[in-house]
């Protein structure tokens, strides 16, 4: 039967995190870092976790989302705050939609490894298009702080880059979870599981695999675009091509999904929590060595725990009264 109860667990985790962030001095920024990584994992999971396809160009979607918001706020400042912000969200979604339709339209005709290879150049490609074509400021990026302060005042700018940006990211993160839960309970979800396990058999079972992959890809990409718009542009008030297309965000998102459990609702939450905490303490203990430690961790997870923490817990919970809370 359809089961939405894992959402209770999900919302509970968010409530606890927000309570800790608000209640304990100095905890808000670490909590927002955790939520950023959870969101990044959730959005990737909708594609990678459910289809088994690897999108190596994932970070490009965060990047174009960030640019969408930056272009609206930086170039259409005169529209006024609310219209410019609205335009920013629309552009972030639109750019992510266009990129995902183009990349997906071409690359999703390809199977497995060939798809992954086709996406290898996506983030570099868009980055170099911006740099080489000197689009949107080229290598100088878009710096918003001065523009926003002048147009809307320092107070409004501070509100935008703190409360509004954080609230926006939390909404996107929770939205990603709710969408994941909906997909898992829908025909779409069953179709995706089937094609992940055996694409040819799925076709013969009546599943339009191209269309299903494309839907998952576009949803995943648009959510990534919204994360870029809130967590990067609004929060940091600048966008540089070198930053927003950096491959390490793709790596981090993959680690989070695999660590937590691909294709599950709570996997990216657990993965994001573990990852963000690990990263936070590793940065203190071994500065500059996070990736050095994370890469072998990913290999170990793949070799020894391919189902991830939540995949493992869900199996352990089967037949107990916790069963319906874990997925």
């Amino acid at each position, binding site marked *: 039967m359809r089961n939405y109860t894992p959402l209770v667990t999900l919302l509970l985790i968010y409530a606890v995190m927000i309570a800790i962030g608000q209640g304990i001095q100095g905890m808000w920024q670490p909590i927002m870092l955790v939520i950023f990584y959870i969101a990044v994992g959730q959005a990737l999971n909708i594609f990678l976790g459910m289809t088994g396809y690897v999108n190596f160009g994932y970070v490009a979607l965060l990047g174009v989302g960030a640019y969408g918001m930056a272009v609206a706020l930086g170039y259409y400042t005169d529209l006024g705050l609310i219209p410019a912000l609205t335009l920013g969200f629309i552009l972030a979604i639109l750019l992510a939609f266009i990129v995902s339709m183009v990349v997906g339209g071409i690359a999703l005709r390809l199977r497995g490894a060939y798809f992954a290879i086709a996406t290898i150049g996506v983030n570099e490609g868009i980055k170099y298009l911006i740099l080489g074509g000197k689009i949107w400021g080229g290598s100088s990026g878009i710096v918003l702080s001065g523009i926003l302060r002048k147009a809307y005042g320092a107070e409004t700018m501070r509100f935008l880059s703190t409360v509004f940006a954080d609230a926006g990211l939390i909404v996107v993160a929770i939205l990603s979870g709710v969408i994941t839960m909906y997909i898992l309970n829908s025909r779409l979800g*069953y179709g995706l599981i089937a094609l992940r396990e055996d694409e040819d058999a799925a076709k013969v079972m009546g599943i339009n695999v191209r269309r299903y992959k494309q839907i998952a890809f576009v949803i995943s990409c648009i959510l990534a675009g919204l994360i870029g718009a809130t967590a990067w542009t609004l929060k940091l008030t600048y966008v540089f091509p070198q930053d927003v297309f950096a491959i390490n965000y793709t790596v981090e998102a993959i680690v989070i999904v695999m660590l937590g459990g691909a294709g599950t609702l709570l996997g990216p939450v657990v993965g994001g929590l573990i990852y963000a905490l690990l990263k936070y303490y590793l940065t203190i203990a071994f500065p500059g060595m996070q990736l050095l430690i994370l890469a072998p961790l990913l290999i170990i997870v793949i070799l020894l725990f391919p189902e991830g923490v939540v995949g493992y817990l869900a199996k352990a919970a089967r037949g107990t009264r916790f069963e319906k809370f874990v997925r």
Partner: protein
Amino acid sequence: MLLKLEEVTKRFGGLVAVNSVSLEIDEGEKVGIVGPNGSGKTTLYNVISGVYAPDGGRIFFEGKEITNLPAHERTKLGIARTFQVPRPFGSATVRENVAIGAMFGRANAGVDEALEMADRYLEMVGIYELREKEAKLLTPLEKKLMELARALAMKPKLLLLDELLAGMNPQDINRILDLINKVKEEENIATIAMVEHLMHAITKFAERVVVMHQGSKLIEGPTMEVLNHPKVVEVYLGEKLKIG
């Protein structure tokens, strides 16, 4: 007329796997396709179910041409199949596997309805108690039964069985044949069963038999007549003995 093949040909490089085969299947009919390994049977199935487009010839389903229709759209019209080597969706449960059939086949069921249908068909094939198990953990026989349940849950008009009975003991064979006959009568499904050996089982099941040989149709007709035809005896020298 449910299914009609008109001089269908499929080549792989220089090899002609199916050579100008014509075939007609009526609603509710029971047909056996017999042929040794490499005679083009599986390719014929793949062409009917839409895994490959044929290189020549035309295919009609209920009078409508489906020669170039993608596999998933053919399924919706009412074609379902099992695989010679079972292909379960490994990490999904048995119940989910069958429900996927109900959702995306001609039945086109919603999620809740599909899960209920899955229970019903699993009960029917006799593996209801395995429904929460991951499909990859089933034995080969259980996987075959699950595939049968999955295909039936799709509510097909044409059911293509690929070596379903191979490797089963006589008891299971009888049980499955009775089951197929029963469902077939209730839902008026035309069934094509494809076998390599097991001529005995085919006599119990099929009203009509098509014998394939090296990609072509060797002969076709009422079951007993065909199996005793000199041409078939010649091709199947060893098999003849098994009938008696």
